């Protein structure tokens, strides 16, 4: 029994490692784990031949079209690693937020030219329905803080559009959400 439990633990750790290698389909420099959407990995029947696992994921934005692809990618990758049965469960609560993004994920975004979230997520309930001052965001290209928000809505749900006043380059900002 103990042996089986420890085997389950080892397998669970391996699964987390394998998931680390699965990129977000729209932002390929960040893995699904670094993005914070994998909430749990559950393993049952850990004896090698018929191991089964459930990966619990949570959507970033309700309409994000990447979620379907992410579920498929996770299933396919884990099967390739020899898991007999892979189930994906979607969990809504607690709702995903960008504080769950890893430090590594933030660095990778920056290097890729997407400014990572510049703020901690706050509980938005009860605060103003008015537009908030756009956060101060550092330009991922030249490092300048002289940037301006062009639009709160960018090329994907999770990003806003900014422009740098120094190097003049436009860039995506991953919104704190």
């Amino acid at each position, binding site marked *: 029994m103990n042996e089986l439990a420890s085997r389950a633990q080892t397998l669970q750790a391996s699964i987390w490692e394998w998931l680390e290698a699965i990129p977000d389909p729209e932002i390929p420099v960040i893995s699904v784990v670094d993005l914070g959407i994998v909430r749990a990995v559950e393993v049952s029947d850990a004896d090698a031949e018929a191991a089964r696992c459930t990966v619990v994921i949570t*959507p970033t*934005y309700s*309409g994000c*079209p990447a979620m379907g692809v992410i579920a498929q990618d996770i299933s396919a990758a884990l099967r390739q690693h020899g898991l007999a049965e892979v189930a994906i469960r979607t969990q809504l609560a607690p709702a995903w937020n960008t504080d769950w993004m890893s430090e590594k994920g933030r660095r990778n975004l920056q290097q890729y030219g997407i400014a990572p979230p510049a703020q901690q997520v706050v509980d938005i309930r009860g605060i103003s*329905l*008015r537009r908030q001052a756009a956060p101060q965001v550092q330009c991922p290209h030249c490092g300048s803080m002289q940037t301006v928000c062009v639009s709160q*809505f960018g090329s994907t749900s999770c990003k806003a559009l900014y422009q740098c006043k120094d190097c003049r380059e436009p860039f995506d900002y991953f919104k704190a959400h």
Partner: protein
Amino acid sequence: MTHKTDYVRRLGDNVLVLSQRLSEWCGKGPALEEDMALINVSLDLIGQARLWLAYAAELEGAGRNEDQLAFLRDAHQFHNLLLVELPNGSYADTLARQFLFDVWHYFLLEGLCESSDARIAEIAQKCFKEVTYHVRRSTDLMIRLGDGSEESHRRMQDAIDALWMYTGELFTTDALDQAMQADGIAPDLAELQQQWQQHVTEVMREATLQLPAAGLWMQGGGKQGRHTEHLGYLLAEMQFLQRTYPGASW
């Protein structure tokens, strides 16, 4: 249980129909940023519609899924507000409709976050974060365009005046709403109306726009499946593929 099914389906119908309307702007927005913003809102709403309709299908227990609810029902089986099915009109009409809806949607979701039904509360919490962005944007645009040029002011005022008669339905409490409020599933619409009225009044004042007079005659019927002629055309376009090639997928 049937009450709850109907109520959740209503929630889904509102956002599904509005999402489809907004998607008609794709590639036609007056500026690239506006185009992207509207389509982002549309995308959020269709995601939300999916969450509500999937739950409604589960509660219904008839073996249907959210796609079948979206694509295989006729107009009289949709119970969305009339406001969301109205044609896009000019950009001013679209923005005014969005503003009136977003403020209502924001306060509704805030109330639903406290729903006695755990699944409804979960979905509402997810949607609420997204709708906060929507309402901030439409509030901002109302003020900029209302208090903008002579032309933009006139267009926003005309749009608000034309849409006003569709706002009564946001707050009419029918038997279904009453049952949901009694069970603590949905918030009190009279309270919601006060919150809505307060924000809309403030924004209109700041936008130098005239709030339509109180007590005007209001349209109704969408929540009971009695629609304007516009919904049928919208559904014809949205449902064409699944009606013509049932079960098609890719």
